[in-house]
């Protein structure tokens, strides 16, 4: 119990930033919920005299939401720490190490979901809604989405095409599940509970049995490797060293999450245009492989006679060759889905352009990772992601004028060129001392 409590405490407070986020989340969440409860805003709108100015009311209204978001991101250390401890030899010699580590992860997710459910319930306390149901829905959805979110972070943090592939699959589920239950409140909670239970059962079984599964998995990997052939062929040294030798693995693998999303979305009777949004997100995820390029390129720098600038061009070309496969599959899927669901031609046409832009942007953002990721890089990635999502919404909406969509896509193309230039400059003065594997892994996460 002591170990589980200590691990949970560390997930939330392991770094000064996380301590601040967690504390801010608690204060804003509890304080905001209390303010909503005892000094409810928007009373003017219901005929009662308003206590606050509109700006003050907005702050009170949004405070619990901000607190909730902070608290959800408070234990951000969980995936990284879990991954580190899970792969360490310590876990074999720590008493009940595996069980305690797993329990700490489950308890952290449950704690986060509990906090979210409590805040949501307090938020609606003075409304005529049935509070039991609100609590139950909020807890179920938060528990499942937080679980999936951490699995995504963990998988993408592990790096490699397979991790990203499974991560993108889980990400689709993360995005689809909560939206469905928020959008259609009458939906039964059986599905999120089943999904959550299934996820945790698979994860726990795999994790607890990992020492026993090592040998058979090793044999399976060897067999698969023999079946797929060598990653190295004469003349393909660049692809071999920077990890772009097997583009088909990721390209074909995208089909699995998209097929599952098709099933979920068709059952929820979603508008076909939502597909543009999801495929754009997947294009970004697959492009993120490029964030490992600089670390892997070190081996090329040591062995080839290219300058840093020449190396950048060769790596860029290698990634575009690699991306042609993933992008090609995404475009084919969009056309196929668009055709079968009668997607508007305009949405289809601009959607295809958006997928190409999403791939280009994420690739170049990945290539800018040449050292430890800073707040400027993080801000740039968030801005790009938001810009892509916003454009996807516009592309999907029949009400948006075509000129607006064109303007957005031209803006994204310009942004691609800017980010490419930034990546090129960074590679031009690349410091291999600062470009270490752990930095790249964090960046990809």
């Amino acid at each position: 119990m002591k170990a589980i409590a200590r691990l949970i405490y560390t997930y939330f407070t392991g770094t000064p930033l996380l301590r601040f986020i967690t504390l801010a989340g608690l204060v804003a969440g509890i304080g905001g919920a209390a303010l909503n409860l005892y000094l409810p805003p928007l009373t003017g709108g219901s005929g009662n005299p308003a206590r606050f100015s509109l700006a003050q009311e907005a702050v009170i209204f949004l405070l619990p939401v901000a607190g909730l978001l902070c608290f959800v991101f408070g234990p951000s250390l969980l995936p990284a720490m879990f991954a580190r401890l899970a792969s360490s030899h310590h876990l074999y010699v720590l008493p009940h190490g595996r069980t305690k580590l797993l329990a700490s992860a489950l308890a952290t997710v449950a704690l986060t979901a509990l906090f979210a459910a409590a805040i949501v319930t307090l938020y609606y306390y003075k409304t005529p809604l049935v509070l039991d149901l609100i609590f139950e829905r909020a807890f179920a959805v938060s528990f499942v989405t937080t679980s999936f979110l951490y699995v995504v972070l963990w998988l993408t943090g592990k790096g490699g095409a397979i991790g990203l592939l499974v991560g993108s699959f889980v990400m689709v589920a993360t995005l689809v599940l909560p939206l469905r239950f928020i959008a259609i409140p009458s939906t039964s909670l059986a599905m999120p509970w089943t999904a959550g239970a299934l996820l945790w059962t698979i994860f726990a079984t795999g994790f607890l049995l990992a020492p026993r599964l090592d040998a058979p998995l090793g044999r399976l990997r060897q067999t698969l490797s023999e079946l797929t052939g060598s990653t190295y062929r004469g003349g393909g040294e660049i692809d071999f060293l920077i990890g772009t030798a097997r583009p088909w693995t990721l390209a074909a693998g995208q089909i699995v999450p998209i097929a599952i999303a098709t099933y979920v979305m068709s059952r929820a009777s979603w508008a076909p245009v939502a597909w543009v949004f999801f495929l754009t997100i997947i294009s970004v995820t697959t492009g993120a492989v490029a964030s490992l390029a600089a670390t892997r390129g070190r081996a090329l720098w040591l062995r080839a006679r290219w300058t840093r600038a020449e190396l950048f061009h060769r790596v860029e070309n290698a990634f575009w060759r690699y991306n042609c496969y993933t992008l090609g599959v995404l475009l084919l899927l969009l056309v196929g889905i668009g055709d079968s669901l009668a997607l508007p031609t305009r949405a289809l046409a601009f959607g295809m352009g958006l997928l190409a832009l999403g791939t280009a942007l994420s690739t170049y953002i990945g290539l800018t990772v040449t050292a430890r990721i800073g707040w400027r890089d993080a801000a740039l990635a968030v801005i790009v992601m938001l810009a892509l999502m916003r454009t996807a919404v516009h592309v999907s909406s029949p009400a948006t004028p075509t000129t607006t969509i064109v303007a957005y896509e031209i803006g994204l193309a310009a942004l691609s060129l800017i980010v490419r230039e930034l990546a090129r400059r960074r590679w031009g003065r690349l410091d291999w001392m600062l470009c270490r594997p752990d930095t790249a892994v964090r960046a990809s996460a």
Partner: protein
Amino acid sequence: MNSPYIAARGLGKSFGGKPVLADVSFTVEPGDVVGVLGKNGAGKTTLLELVLGFTPATAGSVQLFGYDSYRLPGKAKARVGFVPQQDELVNQLTAADQIGVIASFYPKWDDELVGRLSREWEVDLNQRVKNMSVGQRQKLSILVGLGHRPDVLILDEPVASLDPVARRQFLEQIIEVAADGNRSVVFSSHIVSDVERLASKIWILKDRRMYWQGDFDSLKDSVVRLHVRATSPLPASLEIPNALRLERNGTTAAAIVQGWHAQAQEALAQGLGAELEIEQLTLEEIFLELHR
């Protein structure tokens, strides 16, 4: 008599049908300090990982505190400490948090010992792990492995990343702390002088097998350099039993002999009609001769 902490019998390990360790048997008694020597790829790390139950043996068995090490229960794990070759610390944490996390898994933790050693080794507990030098990280890794005062501490090349001055002082302290009374230490190292200075027992792995095991004095008595001085030229067919290497030069010869014993000296001197002088070797010389 106390039962051994570690007992292995006919231990073997193969990866994909390729043997990396074969037919190894040994015991570690309470109070033993065992130094494991061997060339790269001799199987040192595999041996230590088999002892700790990281991987199942493909032949034979190894028991830790009487339990099959691959199925070690929690109460036995609480008595084992391990320091891996490369640290496995969490970069984002401070040293104090890293220690705190690991300490929480154990029923007992010696805060006083960890505090004292961290001061003596100049490990800044408030520093973030990712900002530490390789040597500092290794010291922290050892603190993490020592804090619960394990009955058996296993160290896989623990001081490889330290400078010679720090290494000497540091390893002595580890042994002092970890091997007091009934506690045992098993450590592998490439630095033969460290093993010679600190180990009460030596295991030498060669060609995937336990080539030699015992205390250092027995090893020194067993492997010696023999100087032969005769009045007339030594015969071309000169043979010395159990000689690993023989160099002849007219009336003199030098040989490295394994399995040497005092009775052999008299018989050999009489047989050759020569004067024999025995020179004892350092552990490093023995190690080099055995691997020549």
